[in-house]
Each structure stands twice: as structure tokens, then as C-alpha cells.
């Protein structure tokens, strides 16, 4: 799909179950090589596509993905202000106990890796780069999967209306 066409679509390109499985396997392989706390494949608007989380990790993935997406977009806008022609490939946030490494996968997706301070940054960069090289062709695959025709049929929208009336209201 051409990128301008992508932007005009309300619904993002569909990823098949096979793609999700391949993506999850690829993230798991990286998690097996590095002491990672969390790893998220996120789209450019901050929605989580796939994740691999260390057992017991208690961070909020949704908030992390949202903030990282915004931070990455802000970095790219800074680059544009400075005259950079291409998006930044990576950004690093260094903390007292852990770091966050965010790298571009392609124009629609990026990878967030949260790791402890003791893990060598060079190793994270090297292995993340290799993982991204594996993710790119997976994300490019033509899926052949079609939208379920009735996902927003009359029954669904009627039930959604009921659910919205029930949920989006004053809680007592």
C-alpha cells in the first residue's frame, strides 16, 4: 500500500495471525538473548502490535507505548525543524536504573526496548538492529486476510450503542 493511501485510510493495514505469530516469535528470540524488561512493537500512533514482557514486570504498557510514540514523533519533528530529511533511527532515554531504547522499524512501526542499567547498550543496539531486519519483511508480507465483513454490522453497532449507554455515564 502506498504511504499516502495508508494515511488516508481509517483502518490501518491488516496484519494476519501468521504475521502476529512471526512477530511474537522474533521478539521472543531477542528476549532470549538479552536481559530485557519489556519490548513492544508499536505503530506510529502508539498502539501496541506485539509485546514481550519479563515475568513480574509491572509497568503500564499502554502508557509506555503512548508516551514513546509521542516522544519519537517529537524527535522527528525536531529533526525536521533542523532540516533532517529522514526520520531519526533511534532515541535513548537513560534512567538511574533502566534505559529505554526506541528504534524505527519502518515508517509505520517502531520498537521499544526497556532494559536494566547493567545491560550493555552496544549489545542492545546490535541485537535490536538484527531483530528489526527480521521484522521488516514480516511486516511487509501480503496477508491475504480480509476484514470480516460483518464486524460493524447492525447487530454489532446496536450492541455497541447499548454498551456505550451503559458504560459512558456517571458511575454510582
Amino acid at each position, binding site marked *: 500500500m502506498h504511504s499516502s493511501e495508508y494515511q488516508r485510510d481509517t483502518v490501518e493495514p491488516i496484519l494476519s*495471525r501468521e504475521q502476529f505469530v512471526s512477530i511474537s516469535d522474533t521478539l521472543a528470540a531477542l528476549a532470549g538473548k538479552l536481559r530485557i524488561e519489556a519490548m513492544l512493537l508499536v505503530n506510529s500512533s502508539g498502539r501496541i502490535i506485539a509485546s514481550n514482557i519479563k515475568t513480574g514486570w509491572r509497568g503500564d504498557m499502554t502508557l509506555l507505548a503512548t508516551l514513546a510514540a509521542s516522544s519519537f514523533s517529537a524527535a522527528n519533528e525536531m529533526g525536521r525543524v533542523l532540516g533532517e530529511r529522514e526520520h531519526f533511527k533511534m532515541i535513548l532515554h537513560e534512567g538511574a536504573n533502566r534505559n529505554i531504547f526506541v528504534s524505527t522499524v519502518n515508517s509505520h512501526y517502531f520498537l521499544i526496548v526497556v532494559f536494566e542499567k547493567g545491560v550493555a547498550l552496544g549489545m542492545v543496539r546490535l541485537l535490536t538492529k538484527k531483530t528489526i531486519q527480521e521484522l521488516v519483511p514480516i511486516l511487509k508480507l501480503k496477508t491475504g486476510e480480509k476484514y470480516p465483513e460483518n464486524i460493524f454490522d447492525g447487530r454489532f453497532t446496536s450492541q455497541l450503542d447499548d*454498551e456505550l449507554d451503559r458504560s459512558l455515564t456517571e*458511575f454510582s
Partner: protein
Amino acid sequence: MFINWMLQEIHLKLVYYGPGLSGKTENMNYIYSHIDPALKGDLISLKTKEDRTIFFDFLQLEVGAIDGKKPKFNLYTVPGQVNYSLSRKIVLNGVDGIIFVADSQKEMMNANLDTLLDLEKHLIADGKTLEDFPWVLQYNKRDLPNIVSIDEMNEKLNLFGVPHFPASAVTGQGVFPALKELIKQVVIKTKQQMTVQQEKRA
């Protein structure tokens, strides 16, 4: 809209847009304070020391599963101040629907219009237009004196006859109704788009 078929989740990104101090964050605060706690995530606010939004506020809501699919609504605000246009552009990335929070006070009408034009500029840059994009108008601060009539606000701001809601984000008037209507509008629009895509594939 993002649909995670693996997890059977439907994600919508909904943005509160409007001039500075029109009540965008107040909408979010009201929802956060009054909705069933089981349906909400944490509310995060990226703001200045003076309590003004510098980037965005964010809140995720979810409602019960429908036919096994879980709708999740990601609510954002934008910073309203004029010089944060680039921040607004970033927040609009991937937006599915907009609640335009207009300030009903007479002296704010120019700011409302300027911000609406700013919104249209960003939408056009992303290949969208106000005419065919799901959005609703919320006429906020109806509890204050010195306000413009609803008819006049419609005449000046409601260029495409979108649903509009008299509101007071402080008291909660028009907060949930505007959000519900926006979600319905997004679903209608997405349904139309899916039909077109299916016809193209057929």
C-alpha cells in the same frame, strides 16, 4: 482505527481539540473522575509548572466485549496555545475522531475559529478534511455569563452540520453525550470505509 485481530481488540484514537483554556483537559478530568473505575486506565498529563497542557493528556477507556471484541478508546487532548501547533500535529497522528471543544464566551469566538482553521490545516496535510472526517462540536462553558447563543455558535463554527452539544465540563453537562456521539460517528465512518475497501478487493 486499529484492529488487533489476534487479541480481538478495536482501538479508537479520539482527540479533544480546541483553543487554550476552552476546557479540553477539564473534559478528561470529568470523565476520569466519574466513570466506572473498572473501565479506565491511568490519566497522564504532560503539563507545564503552571498547569497548562504542554503536549497532551491521555486516558484509555474500555467497555465490555461485543461479540468477543473489546473496544478500547484512547482519549487525548492537545495543547491549545497558539505556539504549540506542532505538538497538536503530532497528537493528531492516527486520529479517528475529534471533539472540538469551543469556548462559549463572547471574547473567545475568534480563538475558536482560528483553532478550527488550525485543525483543518493539519487534517488537510494528512489527506483528510473537516467535511468528511468524524467530529462533533462541544460548546463548553455554558454555565458562565457573557456567552454566545447556540444559534450563533452554530452559524460561526458548525460549517458542516456536525452534532453539537451545549456543555459545561466542570459540571459534566454534555461531556459523556459528546463522547458517545463521536464514537458512533467514527463507527459509521469506518463501516463505510470497510465497505468501500471490500468492494475494491472484490
